[in-house]
């Protein structure tokens, strides 16, 4: 009798897992993939826009933030501006890159409404999720691993237009 009950219980458990948990998990994973693609496209087009115009301003920044937040996750966005600089020891000229990072760039945008870069500089955006994605939350709920960023991307390159 007890054995029969255990078989039934096992059957019910398997039904619950296969009918509810697995489809939910897969659909959340799919949503993560969609969010990743959206974030990647947005980061690529935003960095492309900045590289083409040579500056970042408030309007561009706000639009970018509002688009990526539409995915329902929170992100850490880091900006990296590597200004091409030259140094000479009297014999040869050496190129090195002087970095300006997120906080300074945001401060500059807040005070001047615009952060300007020069042609030939490098500009990169690093992004990763700080809140748990739906898939990660669900994994945590069922006791699976949910560590690390599920969505992360790097985009950028040489500034093609700007001050010389």
């Amino acid at each position, binding site marked *: 009798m007890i054995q029969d009950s255990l*078989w*039934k219980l096992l059957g019910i458990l*398997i039904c619950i897992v296969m009918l509810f948990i697995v489809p939910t998990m897969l659909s959340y994973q799919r949503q993560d993939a969609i969010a*990743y693609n959206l974030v990647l496209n947005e980061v690529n087009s935003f960095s492309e826009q900045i590289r083409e115009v040579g500056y970042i301003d408030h309007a561009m920044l706000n639009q970018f933030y509002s688009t990526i937040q539409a995915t329902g996750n929170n992100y850490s966005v880091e900006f*990296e501006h*590597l200004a091409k600089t030259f140094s000479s020891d009297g014999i040869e000229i050496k190129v090195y890159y002087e970095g300006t990072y997120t906080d300074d760039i945001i401060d500059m945008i807040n005070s001047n409404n615009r952060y300007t870069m020069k042609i030939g500089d490098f500009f*990169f955006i690093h992004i990763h999720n700080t809140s748990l994605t739906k898939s990660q939350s669900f994994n945590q709920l069922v006791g699976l691993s949910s560590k690390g960023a599920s969505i992360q991307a*790097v985009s950028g390159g*040489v500034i093609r237009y700007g001050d010389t």
Partner: protein
Amino acid sequence: MGILKFGIIGFLIMMPFFYVSYCQTQMDYYQQIYRDSIFQSIEDASGDAAFAMKTYSESSFDALNSYQIDVPRENVVQIFFDSLEFRDFAYSKLDFPFMIFVEYDGVVVYHPASDTYYPKAYYYRNKEGAIESVNLGDEFLSIDSIDLTTSPMSQVEEQKEHIILMTIESCLNRVSFSLGLENECIFELPETDDGFYSVATDDLSFIVFYSSSRYDGLGNLELVDIKPSGIMKMKEVLPIDI
């Protein structure tokens, strides 16, 4: 009850297969993302290099009053590698067996491992400096047989593309032989009539060959792509194979 037992036992037997299939699918998905990010990084970095090539090249006239364009190749290569490095992309120079500068008067193949440049002009000049023939791989076409004034524009473009591609092919093969890589890299550019290569021959361009030895775990990368500033995936033999 018997049916329930059989059902559960059958499911438990099938479970490992479902699990392996699920893991394989997940692995393929992450591999694909990883591959895409690798190729995107290389493509963007080569785009940066091509931009530098077009922006920093200087033009002048020499003593014979002919137009000279000086491409700062070292600078372009440096920008390519800098750009990769800033993207946190792990690489060594051995991952890039060849790089090609497509210039206005010829192509230059760069071999990063030995830091050597191999130039090859599109045209052969006689002792007086006049253009005598154009390079078409193993054969030479007399300049007199090309009539640029009366030929339709599309035909001229086609001829230009053919000349550039043949020059790239013969130069790559010659470099391959000279470096003893003839068993690994033999180049044979297939004929195309759909303008596939025209993007790389329209203007100055920078082409990078990428060998994925570092990412062997990602399986066979079958992407072959050529752009004005693009990448070409190397296979063991016949890297440019469409």
